[in-house]
């Protein structure tokens, strides 16, 4: 299988330029949202909450807030990145170029993942303004953020190919991802839930993502880090397989 690095780099660079065109909105929005969460949940409510597992409540919610933004923004960026060329017809250029699935994914998904890493850095910096925290396993945290960003960039890419209108493009992030993230232990430990909700919560895959990241931050979480990693890798593998199928069959890409 051949790989043309220049083609991939061209797609990657252009997608990042698209991000920079709306940099003000792209940066300001997560800063504002994160600040509001910290003001409401960290200062106003968090001040009345006990420490969770020895972690200050405001610090406890940082991984969840990061995951909340990461999942939403990564999925949206990636899905929008491939949906817009389909919508405007500019996809013809990509399809008629000597570009395969590998270059396309490195370009689109790589750019979406990069944007997510930039957002993660912004959110973590913003969090520092509100709460003192230290990351127990910074290297693992970075790796885990990259892994989640890559997986959900791939997921967004699939959404962008599946969607045939703007409503469908927004429906999964808004109606599925965001509620699941809120219910996935962003603002609480599932140990705090009454039975049987603590068991039911384990059926929510986002629980494992939030807790995986929380483990890299504070060395503790509601579920095993191994399970979190395994599920994330499995999700990434499923997304890769689906995209390979899409390119092999041309589903929704080629007439």
């Amino acid at each position, binding site marked *: 299988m*051949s790989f*043309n690095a*220049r*083609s991939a*780099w*061209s*797609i990657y*660079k*252009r997608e990042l*330029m698209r991000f920079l*065109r709306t940099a003000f909105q792209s940066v300001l929005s997560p800063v504002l949202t994160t600040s509001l969460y910290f003001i409401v949940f960290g200062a106003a409510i968090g001040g009345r909450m006990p420490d969770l597992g020895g972690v200050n409540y405001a610090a406890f919610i940082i991984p969840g807030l990061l995951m909340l933004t990461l999942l939403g923004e990564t999925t949206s960026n990636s899905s929008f990145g491939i949906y817009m060329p389909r919508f*405007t*017809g*500019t996809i*013809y*250029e*990509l*399809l*008629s*170029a*000597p*570009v*395969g699935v590998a270059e396309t994914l490195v370009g689109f998904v790589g750019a979406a993942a990069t944007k997510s890493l930039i957002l993660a850095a912004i959110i973590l910096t913003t969090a520092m303004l509100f709460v003192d925290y230290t990351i127990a396993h910074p290297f693992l945290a970075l790796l885990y953020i990259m892994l989640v960003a890559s997986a959900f960039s791939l997921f967004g890419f699939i959404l962008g190919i599946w969607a045939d209108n703007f409503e469908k493009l927004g429906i999964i992030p808004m109606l599925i991802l965001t509620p699941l993230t809120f219910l996935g232990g962003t603002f609480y430990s599932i140990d705090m839930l009454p039975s049987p909700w603590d068991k039911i919560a384990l059926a929510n895959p986002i629980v494992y993502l939030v807790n995986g990241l929380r483990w890299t931050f504070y060395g503790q979480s509601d579920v095993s880090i191994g399970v979190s990693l395994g599920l994330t890798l499995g999700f990434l593998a499923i997304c890769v397989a689906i995209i390979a199928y899409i390119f092999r069959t*041309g589903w929704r890409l*080629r*007439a």
Partner: protein
Amino acid sequence: MTAILEISGLTKRYASGLVALDDVDLTINRGEIFALLGPNGAGKTTLIGAVCGLVRPTAGTMRAFGHDMATDWRKARARIGLVPQELATDMFEPVERAVAYSRGLFGLPPDGAHIEQVLRSLSLWEKRKDRIMTLSGGMKRRVLIAKALAHEPDLLFLDEPTAGVDVELRRDMWRLIGQMRERGVTIILTTHYIEEAEEMADRVGIIRKGRILMVDDKAAMMKRLGRTEAVITLAQPLAELPAALAALTVSLENGGTSICYRGGDGTGKGKAEVAELTKALVRAGIDYTGIDIHDSTLEDIFVDLVEQREAENAA
């Protein structure tokens, strides 16, 4: 002549059952301008899409520059450029960056000199920093051509290149296409404007309902199917044709007030016979007040051919 694109048995059947391409065989030679003519929905854009990778063929084979496009598509596509019918491009991008992106997408290293040459040849150099959305429709179409030329293709597809542009710009576009051919680019264009094919094409293909009806040199097609029609208005009506005109393909029409000639071959034979006809009329002492002469155009041939096939199918 060297064939650079060979299409054999190309068929595209959609899930709905619509057959957009039906067993198409076509060979394109290096350096030629080939015009593909056909009514709306004939399969022109589908054919281009199949070659360029936008449409998945149901059956058939395609070879470009000796490469099988099913297995060796990277090498083949690297040498093919496409200017789509729709003005589809990222409207927020500045012209120069959009063209440079196209070159990179095809895996070529940046080449500012080439991009400048392309932009200058398309009168876009002064607009290179402008966002595409700020350009006129004609200039946007030039940007699409610049993008297609950015990777120095040997074969260029132009899908309705002058659709919706004014006459002046259309002439400008023809000049550009001529320049591209001079640089050695083989061009396949689809068009509704038969005048366009007549002006520029070396060979013409006529497609209808997914089937290629005819492919021929433009001149040969004109010679084979072209006709001259002349209507001579008589000063006095005639009851019957004089015997002196019997050798010519003429008829008495409009109640004997005009003589109509239909014949020739589209290469001047008809005009010569009309000249003979007028001399014969003078010799026979028949006066006339006007001559209306008309050579059939490629459009006439195209319409006749398509109508003839429709009549055959209806029968």
